[in-house]
């Protein structure tokens, strides 16, 4: 029964990973770029909510009303000032510049907030610990459930947005071919800036949930980037529902690993990521070989 509980907790944890991963894979699928400052930006949002709660007594959920538009604006500015410019420099520059940005953000946070770990849990009352008891060994935390539902809503919402709205269709078109969309009157730069703004809204939500369910400090961005990346890759980068599956696989792997060994939480997560990666590359290689054989015999 302990194992069943671990799997349930892992699935719920996967909801958080899906929330933090979806912004990363959204930006990757639209702008073909991996933003190495992704995790640090989530921590920026978490600290912003912390300040609003600690200094101004704003409940984190109320705080989001202020923080999310700010994150959207930040995304827009980021795209227009750094990302857009770096993308023109080829493949390497975006990696280098976003890594530089993450170092700046992490250390500015450290300068402002020091080494103390913070949490938003004290500001959300009983939601941080309340749970529904299913059986003696299985319980479902209300916050974890809310996170999971939010993941589904965000992913579903993004899916609907991309297929049903004018802006969503423009984003998909720009992702396909940023040069050609110009011919039909779409301003690719604006569309990419809008996409970056949307991605950072999801980053803000991820930061909020991270802060509520766990502790964070100035240098917590790196690990969050790694988790987001792992969830996105396990699920198949670029696919929204794949992100949810990837998050759940990662969460369950970590949760089961933790049951085996205290260090196992992270080790199993990384190991599953590498195994999935290896399996996928292997099957691609087999696929290519197979196609070659078919072509030769045809």
């Amino acid at each position, binding site marked *: 029964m302990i194992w069943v509980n671990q799997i349930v907790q892992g699935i719920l944890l996967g909801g958080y990973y899906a929330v933090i991963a979806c912004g990363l894979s959204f930006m990757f699928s639209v702008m073909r770029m*991996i933003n190495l400052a992704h995790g640090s930006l989530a921590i920026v949002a978490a600290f912003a909510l912390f300040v609003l709660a600690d200094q101004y007594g704003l409940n984190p959920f109320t705080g989001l009303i202020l923080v999310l538009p700010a994150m959207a604006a930040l995304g827009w500015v980021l795209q227009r000032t750094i990302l857009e410019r770096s993308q023109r420099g080829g493949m390497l*520059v975006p990696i280098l510049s976003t890594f530089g940005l993450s170092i700046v953000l*992490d250390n500015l946070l*450290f300068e402002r907030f020091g080494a103390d770990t913070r949490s938003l849990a004290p500001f959300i009352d009983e939601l941080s610990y309340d749970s529904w008891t299913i059986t003696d060994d299985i319980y479902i935390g209300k916050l974890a459930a809310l996170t999971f539902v939010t993941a589904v809503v965000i992913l579903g919402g993004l899916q609907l947005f991309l297929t049903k709205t004018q802006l969503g269709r423009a984003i998909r078109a720009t992702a396909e071919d940023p040069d050609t969309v110009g011919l039909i009157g779409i301003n690719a730069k604006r569309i990419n800036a809008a996409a970056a703004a949307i991605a950072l809204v999801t980053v803000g939500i991820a930061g909020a949930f991270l802060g509520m369910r766990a502790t964070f400090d100035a240098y917590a961005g790196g690990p969050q980037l790694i988790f987001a990346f792992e969830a996105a890759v396990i699920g198949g980068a670029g696919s929204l529902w794949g992100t949810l599956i990837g998050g759940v696989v990662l969460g369950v792997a970590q949760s089961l690993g933790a049951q085996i060994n205290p260090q196992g939480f992270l080790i199993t997560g990384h190991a599953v990521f590498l195994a999935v990666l290896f399996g996928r590359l292997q099957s691609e290689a087999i696929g290519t070989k197979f196609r070659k054989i078919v072509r030769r015999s045809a």
Partner: protein
Amino acid sequence: MSRDPAIRVERWTPLSRLSILGATLLLVMLAAGPFFFGNNAIDKLTTLFIYVILAVTWNALAGYGGLVSVGQQAFFGLGAYAAVRLADAGLNVYVSLVLAAVIIAAVSLPISSFMLRLKGGEFAIGMWVLAELCHLLVNLDSLVQGETGTSLIALNAYDADQRHAFNYWAALGSMTAILVILFVLLRSRIGSAIQAIRDNEEAAAALGVRVMATKRIIYVFAAFGAALAGALWLSTAITFQPKTYFGVQWTAYMIFMVLVGGLGTFEGAILGALIFFLIEAWFGGSGVWYLVGLGATALLFSLFVPRGIWGWLERRFGLSLLPLGYRILGIEPTAGTSPPDDGERGATPSAGTP
């Protein structure tokens, strides 16, 4: 190609011959360092040599190979860890340092076969995940005692003065070897091949370049360099704490050195290491703002001066101290049949063809 007497292909210039001579003289003089300098100066220079190793090997991977790794600390930490293990097993300390790097290079070979199938940002973070995994696995070793770490007790066999001098020579010798190997490597067919792959992998493959094998050579070389640097760092710091050695800040330093010095230029990486060394000496004490400055500088260089200081100097003044490519002389600009002078080094350092 017709043998037009007016066209000459030139590799060495008088200036570059002079600079090779100068570099050799400098190295010989540095080798005598421990007889003249105090321990403090010796230690500082040892650190500089290790930075040069880190910068030039990361530059080989990113600047020449187009493979930006955010996880070279994996090999840096593993190099130090392997050295601890070997010395603990009773091997001579200085033999352990070099052998550790060789072992880690061998370990990097199988790792390369699936890391190298990742592209761009995926490769970058994939390497970071690898570094995290190595960190966690090393922590499981009972000799290391988790984050408490362990120390290179075997170094106690030498008295303090001896130790400083030996560390210095080990670092100087390693740096010289790395520079010579890289210089020869980049001037060979492999050098041309790896730059062709960086600029356009498919076109290179179509021309008959063995893409995977070439990338692998550069990857293993860079892993060897990082491991050697890690082992040497251990000899100067003596204590091995996994958190310090597997920290992503090492990659941040490498990126800073190479971006500021000149991504994809041989001299630039060395210059970058020197600049980083000086900046650290002056501002390293100012803590967090120093790190903010490093990050911001790397960011600004990547956006506005992607060729770094050396790339800029090279372009502005046609400088080439340690020539890796060829330059073609005597071509009339109007001669349509002449080959374009893209044989000249440093075609596009950072920008792979999108």
